[in-house]
């Protein structure tokens, strides 16, 4: 009979167990009755016959058991092991609760962080065949990942053979008329092949058609799903209707699928074919696009990069004026999207892993202590006939029970942690990381948790089994049972504690370095005073404000009204806010100097007259702008100190003239002032040279209004919005914010803060676990050596020398842990170099601080058992034997 049929039969018996039992009983009863009858027929007395029949039958209960065993699964004994394990854990709740809590913390942290890693790094992008999608842009020495110019995009697309499709996109904003006034809405301009490249099909209507991205084609638009739902009531007849954006009527041709996301520009509500109509797109030297392409089958990213680089070189030769130094960057789209958060996630995963390691080590040593105290029990069970395998299985079952309880709690903790971490991400940042919305307890995460649990279970089963070594069973039966096993535990336990302490050092150092980075970042010398600044962003609808004079007029009136608000000290305009990015750059060339075509890239900002006063930025030389610097006067600029140092070393820049790379007469402007550097870039970017142009001479239709007040700047925000609407009801005003909030909420600050807090939390737990582990080892060692200490003291040892004895042991372990840990910590810090800001991996202050903190905590933890040892009463200790 084949094994499968046998197993099926076993199952039938298992589920018809009651019937099996009844039938067996009846059969056996019949047997005895027959035997009894026969004996009576042979002349035996009724009573005697009954006993004789029973004797002949043998031990009935045993026979029944053996019958059950014959058909039962050996699994049934597992239930016995399990109930014994539970009884054991209940008997010692302190141990069980501690072990389960420690495990739950370790597993919870790891699983929660893994869920983020899964959502951001492992799960592919939600497009067809996402590994074939690449991000394609131009590159510069300063910008390894820059933008594309429209003319270059067109040439690249024409000349390349490695892509099956190649699209460009760029962000934009529109003013949308709503009942509440003009609302600024984010939009995206894309070439018509964009969705086809991603492999996305509109859920309603049609995709863009060839030719719709040619200048002059009829304007069409596609809606994001949520826009369709919220602004158009989800009506299916929306296709074919028109929507007016910034004064232009667009025909709606389609709606994007509900689950569509594009991490690099996820908040765009309206998707419009990219017609090269802006000033920038008419110039080859102006870069405002990004490219995304699908690789042809069999083409590698490297091959594509090589071809794009050679095309870029060709164009450089052809257009030396505009394309000098313009290379090409081709990378996987996923790299472009999640590349920047990979280091932080990996660091966090590493931190959580270390915490889990320390938790497992801690539980292992708890199990060791317990196995030690259960030597007698194990020995007795062994002597009573429990097979070694059965004993081992008992320990395995206990380990599994612990892991199951700890794992279940860990999953609950992880779920809670994920919710909290997700909620901590600001709405603005979520726009850049839409993949985090997919953060869930999914199959991946559960599998990961299962693997962790399995590893932990194996570890916890093996530890006590190894420790016991069945050959020593008999030794365990002898009273006291001290001797070699105690030493073994001390050795193993001590090694484990060194591992724990070393791990704690690594985590503490990591936390220290990240904390220091965060502090440096938030206390960076900004070059201006960030407090008491209120900010609103203003967008002016284009047809109405297409003339510069109208924008200037609007700005003048808006500033005037803002200044008259209660508590306002000064007000100014900048087209890009401080602490944003090294972006919106310009290439400059100086009049009267030889020019070799190199790109002198500087940040360019259009600012109003009072900007430096409002920010409290220091003017170093020359003058700032005045209201007189308007379109009727020759253009002037103020430059920052970095600019002056880089381009005018040892020279006075005031009065010098500069222009664009071709020195077109219109572009020539005179430097009239130098301000001390203030931060245009984001917190962790380097300081670049910058030029500030007079807003009145070079106005922008989208800008930020910055207001300094003596009072709480938040109260100003609604007043500012209404002041702007008073100037023009058509102006779009975005939710205001304050400068300090902007800096604290910036992605740079968020990432550093999250990393510092989480790793700090892990490190705190690791310190606690490590120190508790050390306490356990020392306390155990003291309890084992009570008699020895008693003898020493009886022979005249001073209490101080007992202290020394115990503390020396603790000190040795701590020192080993710290030394091993410091080596590991420097290694780990080098690995996370990208996340460090303003500190080095071998930052002595942090390393010494960690060593001191751990050393002191360890000494405090071992002082308690040392005290107990020193207060041993020699007579009692000796009598106890």
């Amino acid at each position, binding site marked *: 009979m084949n094994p499968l049929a046998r197993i099926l039969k*076993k199952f039938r018996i298992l589920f018809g167990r009651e019937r099996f039992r009844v039938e067996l009983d009846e*059969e*056996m009863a019949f047997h005895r009755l027959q035997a009894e009858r026969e004996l009576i027929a042979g002349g035996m007395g009724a009573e005697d016959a009954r006993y004789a029949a029973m004797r002949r*039958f043998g031990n009935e209960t045993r026979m029944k058991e053996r019958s059950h065993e014959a058909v039962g699964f050996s699994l049934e004994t597992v239930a016995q092991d399990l109930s014994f394990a539970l009884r054991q854990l209940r008997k010692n709740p302190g141990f069980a609760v501690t072990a389960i809590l420690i495990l739950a913390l370790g597993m919870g942290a790891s699983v929660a962080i893994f869920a983020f890693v899964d959502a951001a790094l492992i799960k592919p992008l939600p497009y067809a065949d996402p590994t074939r999608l690449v991000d394609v842009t131009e590159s510069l020495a300063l910008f390894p990942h820059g933008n594309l110019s429209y003319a270059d995009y067109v040439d690249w697309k024409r000349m390349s053979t490695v892509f099956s499709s190649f699209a460009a996109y760029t962000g934009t904003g529109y003013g949308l008329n709503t009942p509440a006034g003009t609302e600024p809405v984010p939009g995206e301009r894309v070439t018509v092949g964009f969705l086809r490249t991603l492999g996305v099909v509109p859920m309603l209507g049609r995709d863009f058609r060839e030719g719709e991205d040619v200048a002059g084609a009829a304007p069409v638009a596609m809606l994001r799903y949520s826009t369709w739902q919220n602004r158009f009531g989800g009506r299916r007849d929306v296709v074919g209707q028109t929507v007016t954006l910034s004064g232009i009527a667009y025909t709606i041709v389609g709606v994007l699928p509900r689950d569509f996301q594009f991490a690099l520009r996820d908040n765009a509500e309206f998707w419009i074919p990219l017609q090269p109509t802006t000033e920038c797109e008419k110039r080859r030297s102006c870069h405002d696009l990004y490219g995304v392409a699908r690789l042809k089958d069999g083409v590698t990213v490297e091959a594509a990069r090589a071809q794009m680089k050679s095309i870029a070189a060709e164009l450089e030769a052809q257009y030396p004026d505009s394309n000098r130094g313009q290379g090409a960057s081709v990378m996987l789209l996923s790299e472009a999207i999640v590349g920047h958060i990979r280091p932080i996630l990996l660091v966090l995963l590493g931190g959580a892993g270390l915490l889990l390691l320390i938790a497992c080590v801690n539980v292992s040593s708890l199990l060791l202590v317990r196995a030690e105290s259960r030597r007698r029990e194990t020995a007795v069970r062994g002597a009573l006939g429990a097979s070694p395998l059965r004993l081992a299985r008992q320990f395995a079952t206990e380990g599994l029970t612990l892991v199951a309880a700890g794992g279940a709690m860990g999953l609950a903790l992880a779920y809670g942690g994920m919710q909290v971490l997700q909620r901590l991400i600001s709405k603005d940042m979520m726009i850049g990381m839409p993949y985090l919305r997919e953060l869930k307890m999914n199959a991946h995460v559960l599998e990961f948790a299962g693997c962790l649990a399995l590893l932990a279970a194996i570890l916890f089963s093996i530890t006590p089994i190894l420790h016991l070594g069945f050959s020593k069973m008999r030794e365990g039966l002898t009273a006291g049972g001290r001797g070699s096993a105690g030493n073994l535990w001390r050795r193993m336990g001590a090694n484990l504690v060194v591992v724990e302490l070393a791990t704690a050092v690594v985590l503490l150092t990591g936390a220290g370095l990240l904390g220091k980075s965060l502090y440096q970042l938030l206390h960076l010398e900004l070059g201006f005073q960030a407090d008491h600044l209120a900010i609103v962003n203003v967008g002016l609808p284009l047809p109405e404000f297409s003339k510069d004079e109208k924008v200037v007029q609007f700005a003048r009136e808006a500033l005037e009204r803002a200044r008259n608000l209660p508590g306002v000290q000064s007000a100014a305009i900048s087209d890009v806010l401080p602490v944003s990015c090294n972006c919106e750059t310009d290439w400059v060339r100086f009049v009267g100097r030889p020019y070799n075509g190199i790109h002198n890239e500087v940040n360019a900002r259009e600012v109003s007259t009072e900007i430096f006063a409002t920010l409290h930025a220091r003017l170093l030389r020359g003058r700032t702008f005045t209201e007189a610097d308007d379109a009727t006067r020759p253009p002037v600029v103020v430059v920052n100190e970095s600019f002056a140092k880089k381009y005018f070393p040892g020279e006075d820049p005031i009065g010098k003239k500069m222009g664009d790379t071709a020195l077109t007469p219109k572009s020539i402007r005179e430097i009239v002032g130098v301000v001390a550097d203030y931060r245009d870039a984001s917190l962790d970017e380097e300081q670049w040279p910058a030029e500030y142009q007079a807003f009145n001479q070079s106005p922008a239709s989208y800008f930020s209004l910055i207001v300094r007040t003596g009072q709480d700047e938040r109260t100003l925000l609604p007043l500012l919005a209404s002041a702007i609407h008073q100037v023009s009801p058509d102006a779009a005003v975005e939710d205001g914010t304050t400068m300090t909030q902007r800096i604290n909420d910036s992605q740079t600050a968020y990432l550093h803060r999250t990393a510092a807090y989480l790793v700090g939390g892990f490190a705190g737990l690791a310190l606690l676990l490590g120190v508790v582990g050390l306490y356990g080892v020392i306390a155990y060692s003291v309890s084992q050596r009570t008699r020895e200490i008693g003898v020493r003291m009886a022979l005249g040892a001073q209490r101080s020398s007992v202290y020394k004895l115990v503390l020396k042991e603790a000190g040795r372990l701590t020192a080993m842990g710290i030394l091993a840990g410091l080596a590991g910590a420097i290694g780990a810090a080098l690995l996370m170099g990208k996340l460090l800001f303003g500190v080095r991996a071998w930052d002595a202050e942090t390393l010494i601080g960690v060593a001191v903190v751990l050393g002191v905590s360890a000494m405090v933890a071992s002082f308690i058992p040392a005290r107990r040892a020193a207060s041993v009463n020699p007579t009692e200790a000796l009598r106890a034997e």
Partner: protein
Amino acid sequence: MAKKPDLLPGTLDMLILKTLTRAPLHGYGIALSIKRLSDDVLTVEEGSLYPALQRLLLQGWVKAEWKLTETNRRARFYTLTAAGRKQLGIELTEFEQMVAAIGRVLADAQEA
């Protein structure tokens, strides 16, 4: 009560199968049959028949069904299956080989 020789280990299954070759029997009948045929030399601890029977059932070497005895009592009767007959053949061959081997060793020991 005189001490009876123990059954050779592993032979009980074979004996049960053999007794069942003649006719279906219930447990008591099997015990009785083994005892009679061996002239009272082989007495099994009667209860140990039952775990053995469960094993044989599980292997599919015997079948069981409840029937009435001549005295009109309900009893479980065991019947040899085709697989059981084959198994008996295998076990008999192995057993004979073993007995022959033991015999040869013992004969040799006597000659020496």
